[in-house]
């Protein structure tokens, strides 16, 4: 196959775009896609201070790299879930990227802060590991953002993550989540940071190819607790559709964005209060996180370890 831009040897076929690109043009295509997404959907403004949630995987590490390359300075945040060697290796990959970008990152060690790793916590609070992990991550990401003076959390959710989540919400008509899957969640000053997903329109395959081509050292292994997760099954189904009809996933999400914009769907928001313990938005007196941790007597010593590359950071 030949590169559609320069006619050189292609390294990747992009069937959704009826195209194939060489290494240089693919890297430029992907970075441009992220830049255009940020601009078109006004995800970042000049005053924003960005903190990216990094897991050590291809998406978040590549996004951290791209943002800084595009001039959107972002520091990192890693949540050590206490999953033995998997968490240790992930942390190593994050450190490596931090050194390369010369940007600091914060680490939250679940074992130190709450006396247990994610597996033990999920058992204790009687939730699946993925559900407990999601709840803790959302809370901690917001907390570190507010505590350390950032106002935007950036996540590496890609097209496949979003399409599979949307599919799950549609299949079960989860109306409370169905219309909230956009690429930005607005800030509530002092309580909730803005959340953005600049990879919303970049597929998982594109992100993996980008990481490989840019030599980004990411963790290949999957989280051991994700085996058998429903979202992986939805991804498989969507990829079967994609193989048969290239562009399906992209159209699914673009159609969704257009639909929520055109219909101006009111996000059914109940009256919001703020947690009397920590200030996190909630519908009752205490937020879900505080309520559950109190109910099951789990300590919450929320501290963040800061890793600063040895060189000075220039703003």
């Amino acid at each position, binding site marked *: *196959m030949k590169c559609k831009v320069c006619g050189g040897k*292609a*390294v*990747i*076929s992009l069937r959704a775009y009826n195209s*194939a690109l060489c*290494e240089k043009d693919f890297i430029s295509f992907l970075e441009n896609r992220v830049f255009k997404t940020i601009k078109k959907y006004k995800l970042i403004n000049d005053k924003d201070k960005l903190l990216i949630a990094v897991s050590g*995987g*291809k*998406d978040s590490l590549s996004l951290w790299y791209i943002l800084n390359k595009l001039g959107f300075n972002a520091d990192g945040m890693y949540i050590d879930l206490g999953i033995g060697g998997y968490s240790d290796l992930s942390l190593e990959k994050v450190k490596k990227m931090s050194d390369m970008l010369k940007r600091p990152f914060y680490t939250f060690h679940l074992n130190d802060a709450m006396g247990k790793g994610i597996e033990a916590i999920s058992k204790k609070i009687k939730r699946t590991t*993925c559900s407990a*992990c999601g709840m803790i991550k959302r809370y901690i990401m917001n907390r570190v953002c507010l505590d350390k003076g950032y106002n935007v959390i950036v996540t590496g959710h890609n097209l*496949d*993550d979003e399409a599979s989540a949307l599919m799950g919400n549609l299949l079960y008509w989860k109306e409370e989540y169905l219309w909230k899957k956009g690429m930005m969640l607005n800030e509530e000053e002092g309580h909730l940071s803005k959340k953005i997903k600049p990879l919303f329109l970049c*597929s*998982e*395959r594109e*992100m*993996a*190819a980008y990481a*490989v*081509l840019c030599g980004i050292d990411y963790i*290949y292994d*999957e*989280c051991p*607790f*994700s085996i058998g*997760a429903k*979202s*992986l099954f939805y*991804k*498989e189904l969507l*990829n*079967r559709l*994609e*193989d048969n009809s290239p562009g399906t996933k992209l159209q699914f999400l673009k159609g969704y964005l257009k639909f929520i914009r055109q219909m101006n769907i009111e996000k059914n928001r109940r009256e919001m209060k703020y947690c009397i313990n920590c200030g996190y938005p909630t519908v009752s007196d205490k937020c879900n996180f505080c309520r559950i941790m109190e109910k099951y007597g789990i300590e919450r010593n929320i501290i963040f370890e800061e890793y600063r590359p040895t060189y000075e950071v220039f703003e």
Partner: protein
Amino acid sequence: MKVEFNGKSIEIKKVSTVSKLLEELAINRETHLVIVNNRLVTEDYRFNQDDKAKIIKVVSGG
């Protein structure tokens, strides 16, 4: 031919192209990338005698 797949070396019958390799292993091209001699290649790549092929899965998450 030998191929590295999910971190393990596997032996499969000789195939001419990357496309055939994915077909042989019943792998969806949307969920995997193929790297030959440390370079990412497209599905029409034709294998040479001493090529070292590696298949990586791109799907992650839970």
